[in-house]
């Protein structure tokens, strides 16, 4: 039976965390695709309940998607905390080790803490009232009214419902996140600092999700969606760096050169920008601002004057049970920018794949990876078109989000692997040069002695 050592276990755990995070991005996509982001008005509670004890009978309609997203996100937070603690423990020692572990532990406890004594008593009273009602309620009325005054709600959005220490954390986490990022850079991507960055990022991401609900801000939603992609990217890089391949990477003539790597890196940045545009579209509700493809309102680039917008808003595709808001010029431009970005990336990745074939030949695994990346972007383009053709069917639109994330991760890992090979070959050259200098010095010494 093969022996699995600690490094392999850790690598496996990070891979599972990254894959689970891809699933979470899919769940987030389902929330926006079903327009369910505000189906649970309160946060961090769910309809006044501690979210972990919200009755299953209440998981209906939009609540199902939003509540599942919140619970699953908490699970990802737990996985990331374990991963960060594990890596920090393995890669640090003495005071640094304990300081880091204490920071992780305190933040986890702070997130688990529900606020002041008064807030807890009030919350407990509400849950107790609900629980009694739930237990005695008829089947059709599983969740029962809380005793609240007329005109009041048992649970509302707004900043008032957020515990004070969560508000403090919302300001502190970006600072800690930047600090950890700087440390990662200064330590030449030391694994423990990357892990701590991921830990801070997951907390900040959770807070952003809550603030988007509580503060009614679509803009926060865009940031939340973008950070999700970057967080997944960071986890994937950590997974790569904890792999046996990373440890044992060798220089190879089949690895890409500087120019190819630079082009791949630029392509990754372009994909990230495209994902930000996509997130903006989702959260600005611009996904159906243009209902046809490949043309746009029957034109190459649609007009956005008042008369044209009135015509678009009268289009039969606007007769939908979702009752969309009227299309605006900004939404049309945003949608078209996403299409233009898609075209640029599609052409770019196909060109890049051709460049890999020409430069490295089919024997190189990097060539094959680049071709698969190009195929991925083709699939993504097809799903993007399907999203328009199906009037943004929830499952297709969500698949588009997940494939977008997969495209970013795949291309980025391919590029990082290329960099790793180059880094290793650089080291080999330095060692060879150093060896050469040593041999030459020995020879000179021998000559001198003769």
């Amino acid at each position, binding site marked *: 039976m093969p022996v699995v050592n600690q490094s392999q276990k850790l690598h496996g755990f990070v891979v599972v965390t990254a894959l689970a995070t891809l699933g979470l991005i899919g769940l987030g996509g389902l929330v926006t695709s*079903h*327009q*369910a*982001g*505000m*189906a*649970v*008005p*309160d946060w961090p509670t769910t*309809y*006044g309940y501690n979210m972990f004890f919200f009755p299953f009978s*209440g998981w*209906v*309609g*939009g*609540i199902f998607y*939003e509540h599942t997203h919140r619970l699953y996100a908490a699970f990802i937070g737990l996985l990331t905390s374990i991963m960060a603690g594990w890596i920090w423990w393995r890669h640090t020692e003495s005071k640094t080790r304990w300081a880091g572990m204490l920071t992780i532990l305190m933040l986890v406890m702070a997130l688990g803490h529900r606020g002041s004594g008064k807030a807890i008593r009030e919350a407990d009273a509400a849950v107790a009232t609900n629980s009694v009602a739930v237990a005695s309620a008829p089947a*059709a*009325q599983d*969740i*029962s*009214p*809380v005793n*609240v*005054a*007329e*005109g*009041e*709600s*048992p*649970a*509302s*959005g*707004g900043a008032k419902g957020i515990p004070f220490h969560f508000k403090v954390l919302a300001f502190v986490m970006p600072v800690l996140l930047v600090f950890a990022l700087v440390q990662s850079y200064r330590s030449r991507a030391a694994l423990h600092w990357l892990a701590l960055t991921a830990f801070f990022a997951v907390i900040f991401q959770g807070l952003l999700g809550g603030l988007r*609900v509580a503060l*009614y801000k679509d803009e926060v939603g865009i940031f939340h969606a973008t950070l999700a992609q970057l967080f997944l990217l960071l986890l994937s890089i950590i997974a790569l760096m904890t792999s046996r391949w990373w440890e044992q990477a060798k220089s190879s003539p089949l690895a890409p050169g500087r120019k190819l790597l630079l082009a791949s890196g630029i392509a990754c940045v372009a994909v990230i920008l495209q994902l930000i545009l996509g997130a903006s579209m989702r959260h600005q509700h611009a996904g159906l601002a243009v209902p046809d493809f490949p043309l746009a309102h029957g034109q190459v680039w649609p007009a956005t004057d008042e008369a044209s917008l*009135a015509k678009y*808003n*009268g*289009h*039969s595709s*606007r*007769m*939908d*049970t*979702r*009752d969309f*808001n009227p299309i605006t010029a900004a939404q049309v431009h945003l949608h078209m920018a996403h299409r233009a970005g898609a075209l640029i990336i599609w052409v770019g990745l196909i060109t890049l794949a051709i460049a890999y074939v020409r430069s490295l030949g089919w024997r190189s695994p990097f060539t094959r990876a680049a071709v698969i990346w190009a195929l991925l972007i083709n699939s993504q383009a097809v799903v993007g078109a399907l999203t328009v053709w199906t009037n943004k069917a929830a499952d297709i639109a969500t698949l588009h989000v997940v494939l977008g994330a997969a495209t970013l991760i795949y291309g980025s890992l391919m590029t990082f692997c290329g960099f790793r090979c180059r880094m290793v070959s650089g080291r080999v050259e330095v060692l060879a040069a150093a060896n050469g200098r040593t041999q030459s010095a020995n020879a000179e010494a021998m000559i001198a002695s003769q």
Partner: protein
Amino acid sequence: MASAADVVGKITVTGTVPAEKDLPLDPKCGELHKGAKPTTTFYVVGPNKELADVFVHITKGLEGKKFDAPAGNVVLDQVGCIYVPYVTGARTGQNIEVRTSDPVLHNVHPTPAVAGNKEYNKAQMPKGQPLMFTWDKPEVFLKFKCDVHPWMFAYVGLVDHPFFAVTGKDGTFTIKNLPDGKYTIDAYHRKAGKPVSKEIEVKGGRVTVNFEIPAA
């Protein structure tokens, strides 16, 4: 002595009215309709093209005038996971009371777009207490929605005077006691694009103004 008039009229729709869509009710909401299949109600049209749910209101001619504080609440109910009425009118500063007759959970999420009108999102338990909302800035239309049930919407025409009406199923409307003067009157249907405007002059008695609204 200044006099006033009732402004009455009928609104009809021209062109082809798009077909309504079946509401994608979930099982719990579906049970409340006992086998019936409700649809969207964007265009409620009578046999002679009379158009319901058009918000008619005075948009010019009332500048600088003050009106009595609005009395009573405007009521929106949730019945079978559908807002009733779909379109209504209210005054700024007036209480809009959102009730629920449903044995299911809703969230009441008004989404004003005018600066100064605050957005809310409140839970409403099954057959829970009514919720009250008030806004100070005029806004036509202010949308209410339920994110638990993404087909649930209601629209409130919010104005700062009492001279407004919503057409009934026969397409008619009545705006009572409009003081003498020259006015612009708008008829706004939620799905039929921009409001249609007309100029009217009131000199006591009764003023009739009819509109034709093209289907989008």
